[in-house]
């Protein structure tokens, strides 16, 4: 099944489509290569373009376990790899002592499997097939650089050493999806290890398809209109441009309001679905809902940048 799924770009695309994810060629190709070359894929892009969803869909398509490691500042070995259940260990030691057990036996016992708290990375390594697990390392840019270095080690051979137990090696390497919002530059070595893909906002065509797939009952004409308006909205210099999740929220709202077309008043009233900060709502008012619907907005003066 795994082999069939990754046999070609089209196979990946149709598998994703069956899970209601509209993947473009570049994404399908990266997924296929990542699986066949057994390399992690690093997906970068603005918030809300569906990076995390890729891993979820992949796990569903493979009918396998999704193991998620959400990164944050201060994430360390104990919360990402493993931790001993100390309270249970202590209790067990007490009981063993009361029963006058032999010391070596106690030690062997309390560092056994049942006292090991498995965290996402260890879980991914110990995953026993038949199909590979999908390991999602979400928002790696939130973790600190120390963790990145540690992660690199794990990703390079899927092998960890727990002093009390020994070295564990993955029998079935997981499919690894690393996502980043690009709030900081990642370690070069980590980037080199991964296949890279920048995921952009969807084209109007693709977004229309996404809306039709994800919002059952919506009329095609309205989906067309929504997709076109989203393209216009993303030209405006918002602090947080609306992503695909916002498009879907908004589509559902419009469906709920039972409108045929988007009038300026409706856009203003439902702006809360699309924009999540006050400055942006103000900005929408300044530009004017009518102008947005007519696709008559000044292009955002984006400054050229280089990192």
């Amino acid at each position, binding site marked *: 099944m795994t082999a069939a799924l990754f046999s070609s*770009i089209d196979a990946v695309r149709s598998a994703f489509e069956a899970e209601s994810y509209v993947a473009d*060629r*570049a994404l399908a*190709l*990266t997924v*296929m*290569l990542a699986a*066949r*070359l057994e*390399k992690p*894929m*690093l997906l*970068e892009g603005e*918030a809300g373009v569906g990076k995390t969803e890729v891993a979820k869909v992949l796990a569903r398509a493979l009918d396998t376990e999704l193991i998620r490691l959400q990164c944050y*500042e*201060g994430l*360390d070995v*104990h919360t990402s790899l493993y*931790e*001993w259940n*100390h*309270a249970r*260990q*202590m209790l067990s*030691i*007490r009981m*063993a*002592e009361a029963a006058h057990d032999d*010391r070596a036996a*106690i*030690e062997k016992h309390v560092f056994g499997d049942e006292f090991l708290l498995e965290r996402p990375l260890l879980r991914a390594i110990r995953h026993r097939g038949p199909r590979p697990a999908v390991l999602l390392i979400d928002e790696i*840019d*939130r973790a600190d*650089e*120390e963790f990145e270095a540690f992660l690199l080690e794990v990703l390079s051979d899927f092998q960890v050493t727990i002093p009390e137990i020994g070295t564990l090696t993955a029998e079935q390497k997981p499919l690894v999806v690393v996502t980043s*919002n*690009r*709030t*900081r*530059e990642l370690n*070069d070595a980590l*980037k*080199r290890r*991964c*296949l*890279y*893909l*920048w995921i952009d906002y969807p084209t109007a065509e693709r977004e229309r398809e996404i809306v039709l797939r994800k919002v059952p009952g919506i009329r095609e004409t309205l989906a067309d209109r929504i997709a076109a308006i989203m393209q216009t909205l993303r030209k405006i*210099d918002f*602090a947080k441009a609306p992503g695909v999740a916002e498009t879907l929220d908004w589509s559902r709202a419009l469906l709920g309001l039972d409108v045929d077309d988007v009038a300026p008043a409706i856009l203003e009233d439902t702006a809360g679905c699309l924009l999540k*900060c006050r*400055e942006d709502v103000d*900005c929408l008012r300044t530009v004017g809902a009518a102008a947005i619907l007519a696709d008559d907005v000044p292009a955002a*003066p*984006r*400054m*050229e*940048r*280089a*990192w």
Partner: protein
Amino acid sequence: MVDQTVALRSADELVGRILAFSRMLRESGLAVTPGRIVDAARSLPLVGLDERDELRLALRTNFASSREEEQLFDRAFDGFWNERPRQSSSRIETDDEPAAEGESLAAVSATSDAADPSAARYGRIEADAERDLRDRWPGGSREFDRAIDALIRSLATRRSRRYRAARRGPRVDFRRSLRRSAARGADVHEIVRARPKIRKTRLILLYDVSGSMADATSFLLRFLLGVQRRLPGSRSAVFSTRFTEVTRALRRRGVAATLEHLARAARHWSGGTDIGGALAVLNRGVVRDGSARSTICLIVSDGYDHGDPERIAREMALLSRRVRRIVWINPLFGTEGYQPLARGMHAALPWIDRFLPGHDVRALRRLTAELGAM
């Protein structure tokens, strides 16, 4: 049999082409490693090679590792495989592409020259931007370096969310306690505690390198290098009408190499200014999503600006909610009779936590005292 040989020969040929292409990519600045070349070659049998686009995507996912690199790759690919370049929506500055917007900038400064008598101060065209930075490097100044050291020390007192073992501390380090006790029988004799590591505050430094700031450049360079060396977690960016992060350039060893690298990374020294645009880049990148709530943002600029003051105000409001403090150092502040009247400065003022002079060592000491008090 014959067919196979032909196929083999063309595969060989393809590998040869890939190798040549890799060399070209390396020259244009991508990190092409043997491992990547091998993986790229391994990818080829997996995609339909008669389709040019698949070849491009397959090689790109192996060789590029950022959006800019993807764009750089696409251009290189089109050049190498000899076809018409595809349309690219946004242009990204690269080293091999010297600033070509002299014209448009000249137009901007021409109009503003007419409108604003003070424009001569900042309206210089980017044509003379590549002046050697080394000319502006001030000789060694112990006092200055010491002032920077003091500044760093005063910043380096923040608590981390990571813990380390300690005799006293608010948290018990169970793992260590138990391990230690295990050596002497199973009883817990000694509780090892943990307390937060001390972490250096992260700074985000945003430096205005437009023409009007030319006089302050030597101060700037020293400050930039000093802070980056001592607070490695910090990030530095310079801007005029463009925005360039220079954190990496500053990690070089040796002043000369750093300056050279800096000059190459940021080709827009002494241009016009777009403060609002630079803040927007910051807000949509480095400090997005509240990832920088414990960061101090330090802006060094005189506030002379071409752009829309309202945009500056809007972006400052956003920034102020995302970082812990905004400190603005204005080299003009401190000169006699200075008032923050420049439009950009005026627009930014309400969101600044500390507005400080920064033209000499004394000003720097004051800055240290103020930052320490935060």
